[in-house]
């Protein structure tokens, strides 16, 4: 393999001569479309993480404000959260497999990976919604206390992202089915992968801060 094939985007290196694919860092002129799209999507993800951090901050401020209502220990069951977490982390793995299959232009495995990702995401979302419904049924809805407002706000925002991600995923699978591996679809697939992994990372934060620290002695 040539050096170019091993490191096609020359990550971490400056320059690049004329005509070859460059990273946009200085000498070589504008970056390739793939680099630009991925980079822009990273910037978007950073802004999304800040959106979440606003809700994390609100949760940290309001976590103790139960207003005489139920607290974390009365509400959170560990089994369901464990299954949710397993489903989401596994979906990230299958999403990565779909990405690898797309790199190798294997339509069957790419679609299979995306389908598995979507189904695991749906399992996660279904479990989360059942948790919400149970809590609201017990009179522990977001109107009950500031703690519950912050909980529904933070976890709900993550759930909303997963929901939008599933819509995106379905659209993209249909597009892949009709059009095959076009460059712009491959770029979107890369962005989706980044998005899905980022949601995983956010979930790790939620799992730790809400579900583990909430019930810690």
């Amino acid at each position, binding site marked *: 393999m040539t050096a170019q094939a091993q490191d096609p985007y020359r990550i971490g290196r400056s320059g690049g001569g004329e005509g070859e694919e460059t990273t946009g860092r200085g000498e070589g002129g504008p970056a390739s479309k793939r680099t630009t799209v991925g980079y822009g999507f990273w910037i978007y993800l950073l802004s999304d993480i800040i959106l979440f951090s606003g809700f994390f901050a609100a949760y940290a401020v309001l976590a103790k*404000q139960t207003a005489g209502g139920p607290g974390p220990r009365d509400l959170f069951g560990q089994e369901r959260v464990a299954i949710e977490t397993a489903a989401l982390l596994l979906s990230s793995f299958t999403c990565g497999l779909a990405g690898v299959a797309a790199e190798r232009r294997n339509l069957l495995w790419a679609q299979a990976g995306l389908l598995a990702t979507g189904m695991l995401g749906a399992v996660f979302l279904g479990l989360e919604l059942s948790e919400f419904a149970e809590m609201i049924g017990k009179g522990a809805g977001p109107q009950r206390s500031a703690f519950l407002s912050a909980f529904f706000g933070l976890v709900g925002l993550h759930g909303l992202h997963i929901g939008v991600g599933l819509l995106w995923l379905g659209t993209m699978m249909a597009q892949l089915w009709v*059009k095959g591996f076009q460059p712009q679809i491959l770029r979107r697939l890369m962005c989706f992968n980044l998005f899905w992994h980022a949601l995983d990372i956010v979930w790790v934060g939620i799992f730790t801060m809400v579900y583990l620290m909430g019930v810690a002695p």
Partner: protein
Amino acid sequence: MLGKLTWSAIPFSQPIPLLAAGGVALALFAVLGWITVKGHWPYLWKEWITSVDHKRIGVMYVLLGLVMLLRGFVDAIMMRTQQATAIGHAQGYLPPEHYDQIFSAHGTIMIFFGAMPVMIGLMNFVVPLQLGVRDVAFPTLNSTSFWLTASGALLVNMSLVIGEFARTGWLPYAPLSETSYSPGVGVDYYVWAIQIAGVGTLMSGINLVTTILKQRAPGMGYLRMPMFCWTALGANMLIVAAFPILTATLAMLTLDRYLGFHFFTNEAGGNMMMFVNLIWAWGHPEVYILILPAFGIFSEVISTFSSKPLFGYRSMVAATLFIVVVSFTVWLHHFFTMGAGGDVNAAFGIATSIIAVGTGVKIYNWLFTMYGGRLRFPTPMLWSIAFLMTFIIGGMTGVLLAVPPADFMLHNSMFLVAHFHNVINSGVIFGAFAGITFWFPKAFGFRLDEFWGKMAFWLTLAGFLIVFGAMYVLGLEGMTRRLQHIDFTEWAPWLYVSVGGIGVMILGVASQLIQIVISIRHREQLRDTTGDPWDGRSLEWATPSPPPAFNFPVLPRVHGEEPYWTIKRKALESQGLGDEPDYEAIEMPRASATGVVTAFFATLIGFAMIWMIWWLAALGFVGAYATFVVFAWRDEEETRISAEDVARIDRARRASRQAWLDAQGEQPA
């Protein structure tokens, strides 16, 4: 069926908003009718509304901003006249509930829909040209950003006739903005307009950051970028880092208002001070989002008209990045009186004083750029010099307010109002006018009339000093802000001075409008044939005025900090232009209606959510999703400009440059 919307939403009993709205509607229909009669719709639709060209979008942004600045200025006139006519026994002409809407709308419109679009528009227009590239990183996203901003502006202006606007001030502090104290739709108008426009701004920030970091002409390393690109980078990094906080805060307020959550309420453990903290964690960086591009404009203008490279380029870059970082550590100075305690107040007071150092570095750099230069004083330079002198006063009153004990006395007074108008006017507004007059010939191919430009400058400067000078005094005499009625008659003389000042400013605004009309009429005399009307130094002046859609026939190779200056020197020394390049066909992004259609559905969603018309909101979401899918499904993303066309356009440019070069040769330097 129509949610909360009934005929009573239209204020038939209040003549002022009704007449104003009637006037606006009449003017709007006149313009639309004229366009229809003249048959300009196909041109407008193809060349502007669906355009993804960064230059066109930039122009539309600036136009939107200028119209909204006028709207906000009318609010300002109403506030000044109300206060001058409501002293002692007099009651003025605006009832309190209307006056409260006016000061809220004034701040909201001026910041979000006046200053922001003008600055983003200038960055959109100039940055790709200065970087020597053909467009921003994501052209269709750019168009969507603009139309979402316009959608937000539309919603705010709809509140004039359908319902009401917020009475909470330009930042809807909780719990005043909660349903128990603001049951009407005013706050909802605010929330949805700002959310929709905010999404547009965030996408624009992502777009420009990616453009500056990933799309530059070959050879343009970071430390060869023009200063305006650096400050644009700083401002857009701040947008990416700060606007999500605003989105989160307003989303929480929306949940409180619509679904009975308790983020900021008085009851059930809600924390209203969290609102103030969150909103200013966005709000203070926002100040720098506005001022940093203006700093960039002043850098370009002062360097060009001093005929010298910018003094202390690297220290300017460092100062810009310093401001970007430190702007996130000062938010608490907006509410020293919250009671956070002496230690916390001291820390934020010191941070606030320190951030002035970055600006101080810049002021000295601008002064030293002028020192020893061959100075010229056209309108953009006048705005820049006035900025240097008046901004220092605003900065010093800011450092005064940064001292917590002083702030306890001056908090919420007219002194504070005078301070932030001082910095925003002389920084952002003067910067905007400097930038607009500076780059107008590049956008339209002719210069703005100098006489009326200078009239506008002197009148605006004089009016501004009178209005806000008087306000400083009023603040020191203890007058608080946002008063609908003034009981204390001793303040009357200064209020009269202030209203006189606004009269002078009205003349200044009139001069601006006359300037535009006169310039369009005399455009043949004011024509810029060379593309370089000011003897510029950066790459935007290497293109013809107005630049072709593709900006550069061949991407320029950059060898230093002032690429166009180098090209000109080389041409003069060798008495010839470089060899004609090999022209190739250029692929440009295709026009797309995605932006304007998305914004149409966003407006529907916003309006439906404000009035709780749920089916319409759902329809809006489905429509927006469908638009997204249609866009994602298109196969051809680009159109081709043939090599012959490129050659034809560039040969015309080279001919005009050759004429310039010949003229230079005749007159000894």
